[in-house]
């Protein structure tokens, strides 16, 4: 409650600043968070720290966005998370939208078309890491591994071709299995685990979720197969190593896009993009359990960055 009051006061201050700077370059930017949880607050914090001094930020909840004319009349709307992006879609305003922190799958198959429906300019910052980056981490972290396993639900099979082509470039092979139902999860995994060096976890909620995680990890341990994850949580849950972007890094990237857009004077949005900044986390316990020796996180990250980023 107290926190809410604090934010409310902050919003008033920024509103005041926008009025003062209305004659210069200062613009009004609405920020919509899917919820108040810590990661979203961190994203907001990163955006504020980069935009707050020059522009007016209006904070709004997804539910109240449609009724906030000031927010809708802003120069730019930044949504954080799927729920916030949905709220922006439903608001029917023509204000350009930057949808940060959305799954690539959702954006490509759902969000993008809906955002564009009202001839609204929109772009996105994905949650997912590009396959090339993940595969490079495989190379850096486990140079011996050559065969990758991947388990996907039916809805995610569209990614397979891209993954396999990327893998081929990296001289890696991919063994995929389609998981029909949760009940057959272990059975499905057991089909590929004996023949792979690493299981690559993709953000597919039907395969990797809170419930299935333990079963998947126990099964992979039994087969002595390490898992590469996509979040810090997966590292904690039992993945050997994960590559991911922190809320701060997503916020930073989003703020940079917003600044670039506003500085151009005309609202021309860049295409949707993968996260530019990323982090690596290693579970040392898992590494010890599996008898693997990995470089420390900072060394690994440095090598990754030295290797070049083409995204």
């Amino acid at each position: 409650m107290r926190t809410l009051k604090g934010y409310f006061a902050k919003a008033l201050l920024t509103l005041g600043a926008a009025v003062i700077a209305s004659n210069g370059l200062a613009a009004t930017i609405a920020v919509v968070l899917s919820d108040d949880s810590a990661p979203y607050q961190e994203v907001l914090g990163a955006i504020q720290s980069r935009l707050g001094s020059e522009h007016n930020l209006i904070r709004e909840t997804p539910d109240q966005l449609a009724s906030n004319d000031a927010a809708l009349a802003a120069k730019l709307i930044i949504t954080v998370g799927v729920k916030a992006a949905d709220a922006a879609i439903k608001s029917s305003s023509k204000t350009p939208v930057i949808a940060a922190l959305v799954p690539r799958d959702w954006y490509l198959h759902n969000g993008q078309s809906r955002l564009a429906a009202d001839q609204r300019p929109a772009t996105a910052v994905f949650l997912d890491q590009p396959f090339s980056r993940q595969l490079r981490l495989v190379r850096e972290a486990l140079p011996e591994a050559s065969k990758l396993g991947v388990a996907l639900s039916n809805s995610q099979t569209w990614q397979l071709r891209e993954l396999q082509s990327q893998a081929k470039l990296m001289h890696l092979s991919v063994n995929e299995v389609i998981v029909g139902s949760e009940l057959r999860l272990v059975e499905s995994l057991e089909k590929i685990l004996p023949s792979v060096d690493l299981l690559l976890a993709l953000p597919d909620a039907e395969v990797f979720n809170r419930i299935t995680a333990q079963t998947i990890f126990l099964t992979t341990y039994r087969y002595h197969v390490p898992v590469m994850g996509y979040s810090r949580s997966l590292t904690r849950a039992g993945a050997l190593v994960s590559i991911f972007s922190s809320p701060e890094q997503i916020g930073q990237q989003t703020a940079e896009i917003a600044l670039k857009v506003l500085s151009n004077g005309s609202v021309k949005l860049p295409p949707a993009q993968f996260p530019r900044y990323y982090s690596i986390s290693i579970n040392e316990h898992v590494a010890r359990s599996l008898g693997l020796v990995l470089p420390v996180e900072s060394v690994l990250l440095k090598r990754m960055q030295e290797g070049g980023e083409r995204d």
Partner: protein
Amino acid sequence: MIRHGIQAKALWLALVPAAVISLILVVWLTAGKIADLDRSLHERAKAMAQTLAPACEYGVATGNREILNRLLISAMNEPDVDGVAVFSADGQLVARVGKANWSQPPLAAIAGSEIDHSDNSASLVYFSAIQRTEIPVDDYVLTGDKEMERRDVRRTPPVGWVGLEFSRTSTLLGQRRVIEQSLLILLTGLAISALIGWRMGRQITRPIVSLSRAVHRLGEGHLEERVESDGAAEFGILQHGVNSMAARLQSMHEQLQERIDQATARLAYQASHDALTGLVNRREFELRLERAVNSSIQHDRIHALCYLDLDQFKVINDSCGHAAGDELLRQLALILKCELRDRDTLARLGGDEFGLLLENCSREDALVVAEQFRVAVHRFRFKWDERIFAVGVSVGLVMITQESGTGANLLSAADAACYVAKNRGRNQIHLYQQRDSDLARHRGEIQWVGRIQQALEDDRLRLVWQEIRPLQAGKTGLHVELLLRMVDEEGQEILPMAFIPAAERYQLMPVIDRWVVDRTLNQCAEYLANGQREDHCLFDINLSGASLKDEEFKHLLIGRLGEAPGLGRLLCFEITETAAIGNLDLANKFILDLRRLGCRFALDDFGSGLSSFSYLKNLSVDYLKIDGAFVRDIAHNGVDRAMVEAIHRIGHEVGLKTVAEFVDSEQALEVLKRIGVDYVQGNYVHAPQPLATLCDRH
């Protein structure tokens, strides 16, 4: 008894509260301990089920029975586990280990709860749900409908169930051990309490027991018994009290015993001495005599026994009264005591008879001593009411030797010797000799006593009648004397002069008199019943001096005559002058009492005794019977005739009818007629006839 009573109470006092408290404590603690054991089993089972359930998650999720079996076997290694089983979400048995008999788990009942149990006396079964373990995989909560559902995964149904059956055997064993140990502690505690109670009880009872033992001993008469005074406080006071009470009792008892001893000595003296003279009495004398007899038998000693009978004592007693007789005896005893040697015994054997036992005394010495006694008595003069009497003593002496026989024999012999001395003229000493003729007669008299008693028992006494015939014309009616006869064992009649002296001497006369009076009264009643008039007949019967003095006899007689008033006028009692003057007052009273009933009296044998004419005035009699000794020779002896004339005249002068007895000749009858005697009696006039003939005659 006391000991057990108090000790038992002390035991109860020590045991009951201890027993109650410890029982409650033991029950409470045991119940707590048993519940703890049970709870601990429950907790262990629950914990194990809860631990096992997540462990089985993977096995159930993957359907890998190998993993499950390994888990279940390791669970089976835990103590008390009887069986473990894993069920799928729909209740199908997936794996089981152990002997437990699994049925379908009560899924309906336990749905919604993660753990449930069923309980019975032998086992405990826990079911725990196998839930999916949730692990966050995303750093962001991705919003959207699908994710919202996932958020509440706790509501997802369990993937299966773990069943654990625990055996209660070891718990029950443990509980039983707890109960046994508790009981052991309880019993040990009670035993210690009992021991303490018993010891305390003994401390209390020991002084009580010693007190009660002392009181018991005192009660039995051991007055010297004392309690050891070792107790303090109340017991000390009690012990002291009992001791002083015992001391008082003992001193009182000793005083009393002293008095009893004195009284006993006095009684012993009285029992062995004569109250009047202070001499040894007959009983004691006989004892000493027996001792003397024994000493003569055993040690061949010679002793002497004297039997002394005073002469003329009866006269003094009768004429001056018993007080005079007693005084005479007292004075004589004093004089005779002076003549005694140290070892001699003088005893009063009764009346005027004395016994003298001279121990270790030869015949010659005995005669000298006896003579000294005789002379001493002879010299003695008794003074009473200005009258002076001289008395003598007749002494029978018998020597006690080895052959002299028993004490009774010796006394009898001495008595007999004394009798001889009296018969020989009195105031002399007779030494007993075997075959003494005088003794023979005396022995005869003794024999008569037995014969009289036997005759009374066998009803061998008879009455005969003899007419007392009037000499003067004009007399009518019948006047008879009833005479006593005894029929001996051979049927011969025995005259009274043969046995009456013996009867008189040995106090048989009252019995004989009662018999005679009884028969006479019956006869009179019969006589009257035959229609005779009472003034037509008069029956004379003899009464002894002893009966005359016997008040009981008099009352009996008056009673009989009172029942039949007519009988008194038919009776005339003949009493002798000697009997009458023996106790004149009593005799006169007897006569007066019976005269009122119509009886008459005759003075019998007048002239044979003292024949003091003065008595004729004092005795209220109707007839004077002149002694037969004067009548028998009256026809030839002038003196006898003069005597009869004198008695007759004096009799008539005092208004008495005279009767002459022993008339046995015509000459005598003629003389008597001339003198004018009123009645005659004798064999010449009428010889006695059996009583039966008297009734026949009329």
